[in-house]
């Protein structure tokens, strides 16, 4: 799960692992270097390897460790920025899903209730006519609408929604038209954590993408 504490811990661990790895590489390199140099020297000088090897280890290992640090700091910032960006993307997608869910459900309830009333009315006017079968059409359209919602939901849960031109336009349009509902900053100015609605929390157990990225 993404949150600031976990991310920093992860980055710190990654930095330490990288330092240890680079020190190990440094030791190996210095040993090979000293062994190669000593191979060309007369046997009388072999006594100096006891001094040369620790100096080589300190020099090469130390240099490798120093070189790793700024790189990892940059890496940490990049990872953090990427994770925050992904969380914001997912948050907007979830808000979009919530928005279309409410909108579609309103339409579906309204259409089904009206269709039932109209169907009964048509049947009442002329029971022998096949006109009341027209009522099946809105119901079919409602099913298509719900199918669309479920496909969008699946794509959002797997983190692929908004990765093609049409969906990107749809999301950008949503962001622009509803920019008043967005607030990604907490009171202290830090990025706000994303809280999933209850029904999505259940879904997040099934879909690893949400579990990894959002909190």
């Amino acid at each position, binding site marked *: 799960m993404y949150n600031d504490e976990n991310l920093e811990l992860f980055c710190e661990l990654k930095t330490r692992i990288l330092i240890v790895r680079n020190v190990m590489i440094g030791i190996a390199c210095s040993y090979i270097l000293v062994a190669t140099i000593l191979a060309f020297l007369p046997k009388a000088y072999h006594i100096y390897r006891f001094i040369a090897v620790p100096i080589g280890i300190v020099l090469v290992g130390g240099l490798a460790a120093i070189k790793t640090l700024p790189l990892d700091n940059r890496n940490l910032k990049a990872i953090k920025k990427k994770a925050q960006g992904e969380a914001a993307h997912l948050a907007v997608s979830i808000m979009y899903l919530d928005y279309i869910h409410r909108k579609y459900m309103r339409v579906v309830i*309204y259409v089904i209730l009206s269709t039932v009333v109209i169907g009964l009315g*048509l049947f009442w006017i*002329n029971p022998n006519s096949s006109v009341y079968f*027209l009522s099946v*059409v809105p119901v079919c359209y409602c099913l298509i609408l719900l199918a669309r919602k479920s*496909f969008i939901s699946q794509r959002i849960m797997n983190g692929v929604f908004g*990765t093609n031109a049409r969906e990107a336009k749809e999301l950008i349009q949503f*962001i*622009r038209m509803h*920019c008043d509902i967005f607030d990604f900053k907490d009171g202290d100015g830090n990025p706000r954590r994303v809280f999933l609605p209850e029904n999505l929390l259940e879904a997040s157990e099934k879909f690893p993408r949400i579990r990894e990225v959002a909190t």
Partner: protein
Amino acid sequence: MTNFEERISRLILRLIDVLLLRNPERTVMGVLLGIVFAFLTTLFHPVLIKVELFDITSAPKWGWIPLGILVVHLPMVVWNIVHKPTMNDEVDEIIRLIEKGNFTDSEKRQMYRNLIQQCISSVDLKRNFTETMQSVQQSLRDTE
């Protein structure tokens, strides 16, 4: 979700969008309006049959559904002509460049993600700007 599943779901969504004319809830409401028209013509059949100028009652009942859809979509068409579009030229241009450019699928996905993140941050900046403006205005009122 594998790459294949992703493509299939994208294709199905595109098909659904074509079927729902890219404005799903409006189209469904249009279908309902068509049914309402059909219901009204059936209900007022005895009255409408007396009208000699035009014969509405002989029109096929299914024909009311496209009419309902057309009526519901008309305000949207007018709105699009009168108002400024929500998408600006810059975003359209970027999307066009991404589509036309020689990029792999994964690169395109990453670019679309970046574009959306940029839009989110621009909205955030706008909000911050508004808040700052409001606080400045408030402080000016306080000093007055």
